[in-house]
């Protein structure tokens, strides 16, 4: 099986040759290649080269055309500061006052900010790995976009003080995510992960998620599927257990769960959804390969009967991670391989099969 087939099997709750392993390696690919984060997040070709190099080193099942959480807001007009060895951050927000929302235009992914560089990275990665390895793009979820456009506190206060205006901002943010995600699919990603840390129950209560965010996520995921996304992957870090049951309604096919969510809780919350997780990110910096290997094995055991699992970290593997720790997680999955000729390959089938439908490479971003 190649990586795509393996992920496809996990999505369908069929038995893959081994459990797919997706290390959430973003900036770590730059550090590994001796490139500054400052350059990595601004140069699509460099980003793609670093990702390919990391793929060759670790041999996992996905590469990421992903820069940071400020791509959307910069394209919409925010001014960023770019430290040399950290991800950029917003120095001046595109939307200092909500009254200016009507004057804000949706960015054009082919022209604005670093979006064209990200699309370039997506196209190169797809060209390099074809349909052997999953190429994952990234869009921020509507709530996270809104908070990146205004600043976290002003956006949250707006939600309470002027909910109708906040909803208009969320709709704008969802439109932005749809436009950017569609462009990424056209550029060559198999799917964009929807990264929505601000929707975590650590930040907003589940009722807020249900009322404000869920309808927009539903719209976003429907649009991404229509645009050719192979699957819908939602990534909300933190204690997400109370909102996991809403994921199927939003159209989520792959649900990330962070280290603070018990695997057993996640399994109960979304019994028919493929889960990915959940090794503690800091462990990749501070732990040992033996401990990572042990934790990976425990997760593989826990999902052995259920299936529908991608071994991963709970959130981004920090840029400063120890490479041997990342390798240990990948080895743990590879060491559990089975012969795919096993006659019981499909006996683990549960839930509704949800196969990946590959789309051809875009002619627009060859």
């Amino acid at each position, binding site marked *: 099986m190649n990586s795509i087939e393996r992920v496809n099997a996990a999505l369908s709750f069929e038995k893959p040759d081994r459990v797919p392993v997706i290390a959430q390696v973003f900036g770590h690919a730059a550090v590994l290649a001796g490139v500054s984060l400052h350059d990595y997040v601004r140069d699509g070709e460099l980003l793609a080269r670093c990702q390919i190099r990391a793929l060759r080193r670790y041999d996992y099942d996905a590469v990421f055309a992903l820069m940071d959480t400020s791509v959307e807001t910069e394209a919409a007009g925010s001014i960023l500061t770019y*430290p040399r*060895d*950290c*991800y950029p*951050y917003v120095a001046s927000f595109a939307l200092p006052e909500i009254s200016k929302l009507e004057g804000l235009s949706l960015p054009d992914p082919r022209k604005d900010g670093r979006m064209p560089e990200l699309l370039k990275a997506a196209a190169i990665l797809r060209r390099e790995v074809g349909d052997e390895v999953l190429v994952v793009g990234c869009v921020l979820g509507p709530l996270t976009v809104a908070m990146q456009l205004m600043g*976290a*506190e002003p956006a*949250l*206060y707006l*939600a*309470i003080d002027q909910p109708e205006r906040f909803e208009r901002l969320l709709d704008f943010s969802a439109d932005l995510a749809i436009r950017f995600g569609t462009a990424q699919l056209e550029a060559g990603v198999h799917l964009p992960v929807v990264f929505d840390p601000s929707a975590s*129950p*650590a*930040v*907003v*209560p589940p009722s*807020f998620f249900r009322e404000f965010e869920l309808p927009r996520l539903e719209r976003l995921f429907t649009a991404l599927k229509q645009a050719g996304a192979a699957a819908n992957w939602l990534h909300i*870090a*933190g*204690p997400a257990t109370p909102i996991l049951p809403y994921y199927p309604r939003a159209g989520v096919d792959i649900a990330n769960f962070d*280290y603070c969510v018990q695997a057993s809780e996640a399994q109960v919350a979304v019994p028919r959804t493929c889960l990915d997780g959940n090794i*503690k*990110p*800091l462990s990749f*910096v*501070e732990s040992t390969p033996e401990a990572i290997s042990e934790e990976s094995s425990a997760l593989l055991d826990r999902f052995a009967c259920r299936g529908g699992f991608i071994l991963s970290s709970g959130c981004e593997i*920090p*840029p*400063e991670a120890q490479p041997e720790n990342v390798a240990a997680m990948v080895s743990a999955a590879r060491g559990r391989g089975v012969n795919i000729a096993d006659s019981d390959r499909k006996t683990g089938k549960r839930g509704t099969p949800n196969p990946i439908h590959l789309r051809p490479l875009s002619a627009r971003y060859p």
Partner: protein
Amino acid sequence: MDLLVKALLDGDQAKALVEAKKLRVAGVGCERIVTDGVEAAMAELDAKCTVEHFNLLEIMLAGRAVMGVLRELYPPMDPPPVTKGTVVIGTPEGDVHDLGKNVFKAVLTAKRFRVVDCGKDCPIETLIETAEREGAVALSVSGLITAVIPQVRLLRERMRERGLEHVRLMAGGAALKQASAESLNVDFVADTAFDGLHYLERITGGNDEQH
């Protein structure tokens, strides 16, 4: 007083201000409004916000209402005379996230700690100098990215060099709370803002000190 507590818990700043003003007009002292109103509301919020059921928004809203009431009761030129101690807080250099730190500030202020906020992206030398200058009982750092961990580990030694061994070191935030206190070389790692508050109340004995 019950109406003030309810308004604070609802995060309704306008109503909380109205109720606080009514209490003042009725002759209720500022200190009683703080202890029976503001602190009572925070205690209720504390009981509700367990590690499993803790979200920043709810506390932000209550915190905003609390800060509005405290500003009304104690204008900048006339600060509260008694506090439980001074706590210096900040986000270390390289980290620009401050939502959690700001919530912690509101919680501590509502519980009558004096908080000196060094802001975000703050060099640790500034944090230490501020702790020394302000006579802090504790220095608390918050971090959302793991890259700040090496700076946090330096704090203890740098504090010792300045004779500040008595100042307790605390850490919190999504990145730092993945590590143990021992690993960070601090005295306490808080899971939530209230967890941090409880620690401070333990080390200060919950007693007021003259400021």
